[in-house]
């Protein structure tokens, strides 16, 4: 015979029921992460207007929706990348060697925040940032220390940076007596992206930035045709606050503007486009990201052929370099980021990208630790070897849902692109239209988090009870201190008459608004620093030598 439950048992049962209600997984959202509404299911009627030959094509065939290559990962495996960069050149060199031992395929280098803004490591106000979030590389001599024994005409090094990187690498190769027409590797010449991603008008004015991109692409296409150009760098634009469709729209606006200007200089699209790769993200919405990669290849192919008159298939088939989304990773219960990054990496592979860097799970907390970087590499190895992600090209092609979503992302992207080009890209950046679009996206995103219309595990629901934070990356500051000391000594020991003549020449060229890349390279060969060379270009364009206005140029510039 059962006795009636005691009051505390009733309470416990109620607690359990309430708890179960709380933890059960419910559909919290029917729109994609970027906001495209979805249906419960899709069928043939949803893609009635899609024509296989016209809109999809086989993998490796125009318009390349289904992939850039016919055999995809059977013929070319994606490149497993892992970015490294912290502290002095010696610190980063150690990191590169460890990454290679772990199974990273290429050398991938990120620069510190100062070098990324073309500011010297000994800047009186900003020196604390030297070696933060990347490697400090203020002059060619530092590149030589970092890459000692590595031949840049034979080794493929991917540089995750924009300002001054290409001239620095070319200057180093020239100092070593190399033939720069054989230069290997890649960097990301897209300065407009920097302008939008927080460098702001103070560091990279839109007009000068864009002209520098066009100069760099032109110089590279003519002088180092094997060098690859990660352009547009749409990753940061997306991370900053954009939808999947917005990534395509702003990225294509940058591409259209860049190609338009190159053609005006007498170049042909097929001289440049084969060197380009789109730098993309793989964000948290699995199906939407796959659709984005597919839509993007289609938009690119049609633009190259129809708008710019490309006749070379290598220009029309877009290669994608992917870094999984950093913004989607959260600080709370950070081990969950391993799951997020694994799914994002899978989306990138099913979307047919050519290289992937999987974010480390500790990215929201600190510079990646050695262990976190190893796990990011292992994630890709599991996907490649156990999951079967690489077996067959475009495995979701033909899915009613994926095809419809591909069409939807494309349509939204083209509408946004038309709006931006209606204003004019440079104007839309200068007058704040595009930043306004990003602010609007981020604002809505935050409001949806606050109202729980959008759930992020650990952030606004399913909060961890007692999550411990992982160990933080720590770096012995000793090598950085010697690096900055060495930098100052090297500057003091230069042949100033040679450097001064190169700086003068650079000022003149930049003042005439001509392509200043050769003159920048010449000044770097003569041991000019990143801050001096870029500062001279700034001064020649009527800007303060130091964007922080804390130092004056050490050079006397000719009066125009």
């Amino acid at each position, binding site marked *: 015979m059962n006795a009636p439950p005691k009051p505390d048992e009733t309470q416990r049962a109620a607690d359990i029921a309430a708890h179960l209600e709380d933890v059960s997984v419910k559909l919290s959202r029917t729109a994609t992460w970027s906001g495209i509404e979805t249906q419960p299911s899709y069928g043939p009627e949803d893609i009635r207007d899609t024509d296989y030959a016209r809109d999809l094509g086989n993998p490796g065939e125009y318009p390349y929706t289904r992939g850039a290559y016919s055999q995809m990962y059977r013929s070319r495996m994606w490149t497993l990348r892992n970015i490294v960069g912290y502290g002095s050149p010696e610190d980063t060199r150690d990191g590169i060697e460890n990454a290679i031992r772990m199974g990273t395929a290429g050398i991938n280098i990120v620069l510190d925040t100062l070098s990324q803004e073309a500011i010297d490591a000994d800047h009186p106000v*900003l020196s*604390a940032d030297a070696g933060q*979030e990347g490697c400090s590389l203020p002059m060619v001599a530092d590149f030589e220390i970092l890459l000692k024994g590595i031949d840049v005409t034979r080794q493929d090094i991917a540089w995750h940076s924009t300002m001054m990187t290409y001239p620095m690498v070319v200057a180093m190769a020239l100092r070593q007596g190399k033939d720069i027409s054989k230069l290997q590797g890649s960097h990301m010449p897209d300065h407009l992206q920097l302008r939008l*991603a*927080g460098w702001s008008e103070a560091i990279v004015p839109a007009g000068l930035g864009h002209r520098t991109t066009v100069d760099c692409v032109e110089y590279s296409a003519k002088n180092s045709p094997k060098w690859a150009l990660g352009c547009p760098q749409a990753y940061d634009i997306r991370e900053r606050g954009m939808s999947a469709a917005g990534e395509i729209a702003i990225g294509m606006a940058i591409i259209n503007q860049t190609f338009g200007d190159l053609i005006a200089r007498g170049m042909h699209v097929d001289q440049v486009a084969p060197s380009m790769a789109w730098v993309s993200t793989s964000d948290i919405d699995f199906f939407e990201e796959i659709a984005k990669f597919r839509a993007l290849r289609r938009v690119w192919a049609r633009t190259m052929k129809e708008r710019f008159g490309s006749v070379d298939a290598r220009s029309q088939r877009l290669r994608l370099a992917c870094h999984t989304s950093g913004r989607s990773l959260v600080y709370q219960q950070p081990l969950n980021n391993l799951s997020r990054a694994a799914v994002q990496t899978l989306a990138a592979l099913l979307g047919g990208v050519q290289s992937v860097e999987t974010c480390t799970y500790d990215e929201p907390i600190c510079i990646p630790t050695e262990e976190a970087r190893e796990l990011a590499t292992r994630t890709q190895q599991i996907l490649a070897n156990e999951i079967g992600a690489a077996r067959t090209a475009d495995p979701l092609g033909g899915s009613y849902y994926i095809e419809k979503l591909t069409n939807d992302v494309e349509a939204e992207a083209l509408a946004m692109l038309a709006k931006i080009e209606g204003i004019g890209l440079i104007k839309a950046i200068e007058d704040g239209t595009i930043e306004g679009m990003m*602010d609007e996206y981020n*604002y809505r995103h*935050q409001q949806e988090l606050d109202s729980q219309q959008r759930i992020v595990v650990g952030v606004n629901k399913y909060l961890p009870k007692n999550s411990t934070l992982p160990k933080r990356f720590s770096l012995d500051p000793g090598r950085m201190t010697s690096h900055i000391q060495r930098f100052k000594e090297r500057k003091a020991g230069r042949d100033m008459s040679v450097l001064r003549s190169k700086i003068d020449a650079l000022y003149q060229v930049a003042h005439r608004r001509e392509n200043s890349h050769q003159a920048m390279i010449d000044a770097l060969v003569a041991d000019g620093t990143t801050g001096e060379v870029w500062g001279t270009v700034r001064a020649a364009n009527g800007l303060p030598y130091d964007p*922080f206005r804390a130092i004056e140029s050490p050079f006397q510039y000719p009066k125009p």
Partner: protein
Amino acid sequence: MIGEKIRCLLAMLGTDVHSKGIRTLAQLLRDRGVEVIYLGEHNTADGLINALIAEDADVVGLSYSTATYLHYTRDLLVKMKAAGVDDVPVMLGGLIHADDEPELREMGVKGIFGPGSSMTQIVAFLQDVTGKTLTAP
């Protein structure tokens, strides 16, 4: 004091470019009736203090996504004291690691809003340190 607006200066110091969070915060504070003086990224301590004096702000809010926040915050607080404006409370947001909170408090930071902080907490802090009450615009 009711009716007087809270004037909050928002800025970033050093080379940090991650201004997404502080831009969104600026909008969310304006929605709640705060008068935001938005300096954005790439400020020096001297530039920030000049703006603070010129604008007569009630509170300074700084955002950081790079690990140098201890250095930049200490430097700013020392210079604020030298300029005689150390009575203006300073709050921090962004990727502030929990382990660094005691040191930040000790150097004089009044509010720390790292990952997981809510607008409710930030608004309560602003009302508390300024003695002003927010009324929606």
